């Protein structure tokens, strides 16, 4: 049913993405594709996979942005511009516009944990939900003719046949820098909620009125290298015996 849950869902499972930490390696993109092409629903197809016009369905993508402060200069490495790597997947919005426009009832938001899913057997592939989403979180699979989107790895997070440490979305599990975190954002005591509170986590395009569950943590302010405390010369006066001799010889040369 494409009506949204009438009350706020008791759990709001989602991701918190730390833009300060992400290095833009795209490991989450590949891990997501790998897990989800063999998991829930139709495979994530590629078109012309070995040709020049290759394209394919992905549920998670990483953009990289250059952000220039007001009046800032872009001069090679000494400029004031900074690069921010920006992973983007479905935000599992509380007021998900993609759900209500669905004519068939294929799109729905789960009343218990807030995950937005597509029942692929009911999807006619009209593409209206992708039009309704301001974030570009939904991509039509051109081979299966059905809409694909992030499932928050529903086949991992509740999967009791895999080790507990793996019961998080594939992108979160694979991130080598811990830039992605999974948890319940309805619970103020959860790690993700604390992170959002401490770091000033924000919504993407709040003006669209979608009330996303996923939050982003801003990059920390950049510090000037020169203003950092200089590296102290180490004190070696406590050295004895052979190490004291090596120390004094190395000082001499």
């Amino acid at each position, binding site marked *: 049913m494409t009506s949204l849950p009438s009350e706020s869902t008791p759990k709001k499972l989602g991701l918190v993405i730390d833009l300060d930490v992400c290095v833009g390696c795209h490991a989450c993109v590949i891990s997501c594709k790998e897990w989800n092409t063999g998991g829930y629903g139709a495979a994530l197809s590629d078109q012309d996979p070995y040709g020049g016009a290759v394209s394919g369905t992905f549920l998670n993508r990483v953009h990289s942005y*250059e952000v220039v402060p007001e009046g800032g200069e872009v001069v090679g490495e000494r400029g004031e511009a900074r690069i921010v790597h920006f992973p983007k997947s479905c935000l599992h919005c509380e007021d998900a516009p993609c759900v209500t426009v669905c004519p068939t009832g294929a799109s729905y938001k789960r009343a218990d944990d807030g995950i937005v899913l597509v029942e692929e057997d009911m999807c006619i592939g009209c593409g209206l939900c992708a039009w309704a989403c301001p974030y570009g979180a939904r991509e039509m699979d051109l081979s299966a003719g059905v809409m694909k989107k992030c499932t928050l790895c529903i086949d991992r997070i509740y999967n009791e046949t895999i080790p507990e440490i793996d019961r998080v979305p594939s992108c979160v599990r694979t991130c080598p820098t811990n830039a992605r975190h999974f948890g319940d954002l309805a619970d103020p005591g959860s790690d993700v909620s604390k992170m959002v509170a401490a770091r000033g986590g924000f919504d993407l395009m709040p003006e669209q009125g979608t009330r996303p569950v996923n939050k982003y943590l801003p990059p920390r302010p950049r510090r000037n290298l020169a203003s950092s405390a200089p590296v102290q010369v180490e004190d070696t006066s406590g050295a004895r015996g052979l190490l004291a001799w090596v120390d004094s010889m190395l000082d001499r040369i």
Partner: protein
Amino acid sequence: MHPALSIIVFTTASGLGYGLAAVLGLGLLDPLSWSTKIAHVLALLLIGGGLISSTLHLGNPQRAWRALSQWRTSWLSREGVMALVTFVPLTLNAFSVIFLDRHLIWAGLAGTVLAAVTVYCTAMIYASLKAIDAWHTPLTPASYLLFSGAGGALAASLFAASGTGPWAGLAIAGMLLLVAAWAVKLAWRNRLQRRPRSTPETATGLGAIGKVRLFEPPHINDNYLTSEMGFRIARKHASKLFRIAFAAGLVAPLILAFIALFLPAGGAMVLLALAVLAFGAGVMVERWLFFAEARHAVMNYY
């Protein structure tokens, strides 16, 4: 937005068809005349052809029947339901006019009202999408309804002139609706100049740091999002095309219909036919621009 031919044909053809059906439903045309019977068939063909065209872009059209289920929330579903419901009085009245030489007043009026509701639902599919600033305005359904009515009145005046009924009133109504439709359209197009609701800064949330520019896209080639939502048209071509749409869709039919008022039925028929053709061509271009000029919020990420 990518201007898909199937959708442009659908909205143009069914818009004209519903407009014609709505005017026929008022019972102003002589049901004994052959031209009126042809008009009823043509309206149904335009509507049916448009609806079939609209299913061509589906990934799984065999499941299209499911689209009738979610009328509580989805304008697309409402449109599907209303299209089917509208067929009932339209077909009843068409059958009666064609085979029994009799206009059914209640079926006719029901057809008129339901045709307008269906066109409104079609327009609301677009107008309800907040992610597309250009469409998210009451001016969108207003222009769809007026274009539909103008086309319907013009086409009806053509069939009336071809038959025996009085047609000048219909032609004048068509001209008035035409002017109203384009007035709304101009206001709609002026909205495109407004500051967009979302920007790369709000899309990334990085506006607090500074101006945001895409440094490296997530993919080198086009993907579904960029080919569906990322259609770009050069401003100079857009304004040229809009002038073409304006000339064909407003100026030409207005002049032709005006001259037709002073001619006998035979000459008027030819001019009104040309007016309807010009109007159809103009609306096709207008609908193409409706998609091509609309910018989707997701493009703030690209």
